């Protein structure tokens, strides 16, 4: 840390300025946060909801947007029976105020100057912070090679599909491979099945290229993928992980 007296991260009022359904269970909220100091790709915010009687609930959400003025996008997946995610998906309307603080996190962050090839591995809504990285990469002057391996239950659950497809076909865009774990569409150019070592070997960069891996998704998914990357020769310190979502489900 550089400064002797660090500033507290204060709660700010954020106004919902856009809502985008991404899939039947996932939506993006775009928040305008006056005074937002900017963020790095991969960071998250803490959101705080307050009931009329003062009861509060807090949850963390990854920032899905690249640094873009005072606008901060989060992408929320419904957790059945959840307290906060169904509220964000079903109740929140444009011009509502929410409280948040951030940006938080200095570990699961990508620095656009890092020259290492970038291997991004997402399970389900774990794609949110990786999308921030891909969006930041798309703005970077001289970005390294990047590949996204993205596991979803079925085709309809792929978040950001159109934007990802556009990125993949753009000059210098990332390589993208989707894999589906619970559906086999008749027409499908992606992969099928859970991410395993063979798939990682095929999609990833050889360890000699000194790639930097970012893995995000449900816990069992992240455990498995990180262990496979270690087995493939990726050094532990170049495998960044973020785990969220219910402990059971794997994308």
């Amino acid at each position: 840390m550089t400064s002797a007296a660090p500033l507290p991260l204060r709660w700010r009022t954020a106004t919902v300025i856009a809502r985008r359904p991404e899939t039947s269970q996932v939506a993006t909220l775009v928040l305008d946060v006056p005074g937002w100091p900017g963020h790095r790709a991969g960071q998250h915010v803490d959101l705080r909801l307050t009931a009329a009687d003062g009861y509060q609930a807090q949850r963390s959400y990854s920032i899905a947007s690249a640094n873009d003025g005072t606008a901060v996008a989060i992408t929320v997946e419904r957790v059945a029976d959840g307290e906060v995610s169904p509220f964000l998906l079903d109740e929140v309307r444009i011009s509502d105020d929410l409280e948040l603080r951030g940006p938080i996190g200095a570990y699961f962050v990508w620095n656009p100057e890092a020259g290492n090839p970038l291997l991004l591995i997402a399970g389900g809504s774990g794609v949110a912070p990786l999308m921030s990285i891909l969006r930041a990469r798309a703005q970077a002057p001289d970005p390294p090679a990047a590949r996204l391996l993205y596991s979803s239950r079925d085709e309809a659950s792929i978040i950001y599909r159109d934007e990802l497809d556009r990125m993949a076909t753009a000059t210098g865009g990332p390589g993208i491979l989707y894999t589906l774990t619970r559906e086999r569409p008749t027409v499908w150019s992606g992969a099928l099945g859970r991410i395993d070592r063979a798939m990682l070997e095929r999609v990833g960069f050889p360890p000699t290229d000194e790639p930097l891996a970012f893995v995000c998704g449900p816990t069992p998914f992240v455990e498995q993928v990180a262990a496979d990357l270690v087995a493939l020769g990726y050094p532990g310190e170049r495998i960044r992980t973020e785990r969220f979502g219910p402990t059971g489900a794997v994308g």
Partner: protein
Amino acid sequence: MVITRGFSGRGRPAGRSSGRIPPGQHLVSDFPVLTAGPTPRTPLERWSLSLRDAERDLTVLSWADFEALPQSEMTADIHCVTKWTKLDTHWRGVTVDDLLKAAGLTNPPGMFATAECDGGYTTNLPVADLIDGKAMVATHFGGEPLTPAHGGPARLLVPHLYFWKSAKWVRSLRFRDGDHPGFWESLGYHIYGDPWREQRYTGDT
């Protein structure tokens, strides 16, 4: 404080747990895993635990040495900075007091300690938070050996601080006079981490 339109909340502490859930936390029944990077797996025959005075080893315990020390049980509520709280978790291990005794020490050789772990993780604590039965190096959770994902074979357990202080895969406690920020502490998390004061991030008072 901004009232959130339409929000009434559901996760209110039920009778039995009221007063046990710090602000900003909610109860979970499962046991979430949060770790930076891959899970290290150290075979027991290569495992050891050392106590260090700055750069000097005071004692190095093998797994067998460790198991031969007095074993203690601890039941505690744990609170993760990512907002979950789990009540009545049950652990077995060796208290830091007994570890110090095993190293022939009556007092810790410094005001602060850094827990150092497989995988390079570190976290810092005042020694006052480690002694007098407040902390242990735990090897069992709920009567079973700790799984690697939860820090097995051995993790530090300091239940009264946010759970990132309960370092997984602990291999040494290094005592020093100064407080040196560990992994999360140098990445923006609070130097102390009291859940009841919501000391989550650098600058929280």
